[in-house]
């Protein structure tokens, strides 16, 4: 019987939002400031682990119905396909390009294919980290 950790649960609800926001910021900032796919992914994974710690597994799985193994696989595939996409235009494998576009709300914005690659990295990291931690914690020794 699990004790009813009201304080932990409440704090977690708040903290998770902050952690996810921070990790998204780290991810986006990666192009110009410290951060990037790897660290962003790891902090996201940390937020998910925090959820697992304060709530029971069934509830998380109900509200966040994600298969993290598939997530990791999808991440690796995204990284590979962004590399392949360049080849369609006759570039080398993993040749990245970038450009500046005028998008209605954001104004002058830089869009780079490297970010797509970073998405792959982030997904792979999140998926792997959560897979490892949940499989160890669910293990009955």
């Amino acid at each position, binding site marked *: 019987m699990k004790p009813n950790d009201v304080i932990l649960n409440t704090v977690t609800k708040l903290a998770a939002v902050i952690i996810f926001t921070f990790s998204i910021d780290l991810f986006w900032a990666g192009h110009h400031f410290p951060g990037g796919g790897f660290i962003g992914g790891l902090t996201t994974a940390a937020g998910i682990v925090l959820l697992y710690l304060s709530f029971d597994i069934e509830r998380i799985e109900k509200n966040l119905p994600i298969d993290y193994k598939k997530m990791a696989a999808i991440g690796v595939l995204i990284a590979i396909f962004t590399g392949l996409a360049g080849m369609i235009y006759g570039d080398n494998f993993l040749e990245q390009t970038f450009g500046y576009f005028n998008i209605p709300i954001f104004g002058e914005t830089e869009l780079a294919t490297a970010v797509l*690659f970073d998405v792959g990295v982030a997904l792979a990291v999140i998926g792997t980290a959560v897979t490892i931690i949940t499989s160890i914690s669910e293990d009955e020794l």
Partner: protein
Amino acid sequence: MSFLHFTILLPFIAAIVVPFIYRSFNHKIHTGWFVVLVPVFIFINLLLQIPSISNGENILISMPWIPSLEINFDIYMDGLALMFGLIISGIGALVVIYSIFYMDKNREALHNFYIYLLLFMGAMLGLVSSDNVFVLYTLWELTSVSSFLLIAYWYERKKSREGALKAMIITVFGGLAMLAGLILLVMITDTYSLREMIANVDLIQESALFIPALLLILLGAFTKSAQFPFSIWLPDAMEAPTPVSAYLHSATMVKAGIYLVARMTPIFGGSATWFWLVVGIGVITLFYGSVRAIRQTDLKALLAFSTISQLGLIMSLLGVGSAAFYFNPGESQQLYAFALFAAIFHLFNHSTFKGALFMVVGIIDHETGTRDIRRLGGLLSIMPITFTIALIGSLSMAGLPPFNGFLSKEMFFTGMLQASEVDMFSLEWLANGCPILAWIASIFTFIYCMILLVRPFLGTFKPDRLPKEKVHEAPIGMLIPPIILGSLVVLIFFFPNILGQYILNPAIASIVPDLEKPFKITAWHGFGPELYMTIGVIVLGLLLFVSIKKWNIAFRVLPENLNLNYLYSSSLENMEKRSVSFTNRYMTGSIRHYLIYIFVFVFSVLALALITLNAIDFDFSNYAYVTIYDVGILLAMIVAALTTLFTRNRITAIVSLGAVGYLVVMLFVIFRAPDLALTQMVVETATTALFLLCFYHLPKLGKKVEKVKFKLTNLIVSILVGVTVTILTLVATGHKLFTPITEFFENAYELAGAKNIVNAILVDFRGFDTMLEIAVLFIAGIGVYTLIKLRSKGSDTDEAETE
């Protein structure tokens, strides 16, 4: 492919067809009847070559095999090759006929038998007629392999397998030595052709590789021809079916070494090393074989030792004959070439009478069920024809008239007496010892021939001691081949010069091409020393044979372990034991030991490189200033690291390891690597958590909190590795040979649109590495998942069983 090539390769072609014939016809007709056509065909074809070759017109036909390497199947058919070819195909045909009656068509796996036999026949024919040394070697090994298969024909018997293995090990050992010798010859002369090697004989004799090549080739010849001390495989090879023993181990394969020595005599003959090695080993083998033969109670073992002895005789004659190459053409050369002639003659004779004797023993075995002379006796009246053949064979082997053995034995004594007169190589005691030893060996030969003749056939018949109940004369088909061989034995005595003119003299001419006149064989030399020696052999031999029971006990005084077989098997056993204990000594199974090897190797390679390249040279001029933060963090790290090493508690070790990790984060911070610092922090946290998890799950059993055991070796190794790596780092950082490529990455904003250089490198400039690294991460994650989720509930042994 010429017709001659077809003739020589025919056995291989036939070997492919045999299983089909066996399957369709064997239930009606014995497969051997089809097989016998092959050697008969070859024999007739080779007979047709006699006129041209006896006129000195040798045949050379080339067939490309690996032209780019100049390895071609070149057939060079001269007198020597022709003589061997005739023996191989002729006795081959007789042996196949004999085997038709010896091997039961319903009980034996005949297709195997005839395929092996045909393979052997083809290999042997190719071996004697090949001019290319590498083709010769290939076929040489093929004879070893097919002989191995034939010896182990009854593979369900342990003794057959052991005998086959022994023969294989010894002959392949010699074969490889011979290959090395042939390669040396090729290196000297730069040709693969035997004829061209003989033409360049001066080049070989002046070379520094002359003696190594000579020794290696002799090793090959001696192992194949069962010379002392490599003779031990031959008696054990008697586990083979008797037709095989008759064919391989008396008439053909064991003469491959003789052939090689005869072929190589023009190259190596005339040197003292060759002369004394071949003569000496030959005489020792002759003596050893004849003495050991007397003790045997198994008829085939007796014949095996007698073969060893006779091969030694031929070998020693070849040795004496090699002195012919010391002289220019003339009187002396003629004199020593006579020994070569005697060798060739005796080789031919031995093939005839030994083949017949083996067949006789096979008949006795087949009809009575045993080969043990202690059980046999009084077969004379039951098997009169077999006895007649045995009489002819053994008296010929003993060297009595009117059989061909008498002629070659007389010539042997002449040769040996000549060896004692050799004054050119100045080894007098050996020269005088040879004829005496040879004479004594001949007495022993006479004795075992008497044993072979008297013990099974004379005396009283003891039917109750024989496994078979009804003992009778062999079927006529089994008798025909030995009858043919036996009549050859007699015919050669009366008309030796027909054989001499058409076969033996061309054979001699292919060894010594510039002889003055061909040799004649005469049965009567007048009252020379040879005749007195023969009379002495007969008289002393008879006396010793009659009194054999009195002095035979003397052999028992000799310790049983003092024989070559014991030496061979014990050295084989020892080798196995030693290598096992050697491997067990360093392959301990302990990972700590392996780590010590690895570390010692790494640091010694690095240290050696540093010292030999004279690289220990520090240059601190480019180093940055040390700040107070660096010193502080380093001190903290040292304390944490030492705590990890010396703590008694595992939790403390894990925590201090974590401390080291966080101090590294601080180092990254002060060395301005924010990305690294962030990542390191998160990763360090995760790994520490995982360590704690592992610690929690340690098994209860033996979970004692104890201090790390101190070991001096570990301390020394770790200090040495640390010191080496430190010196290496200091040396490497002090010397920058090239300007770093960081300037290029400083253009990250223009090239990749990113102000974060680290990230630009990770996802853009070196995105490939990152891609593979996330793949690694993914594989690790899946690995953990499978290890935990997909393991079977039971223990490892259960898993192995269910698979």
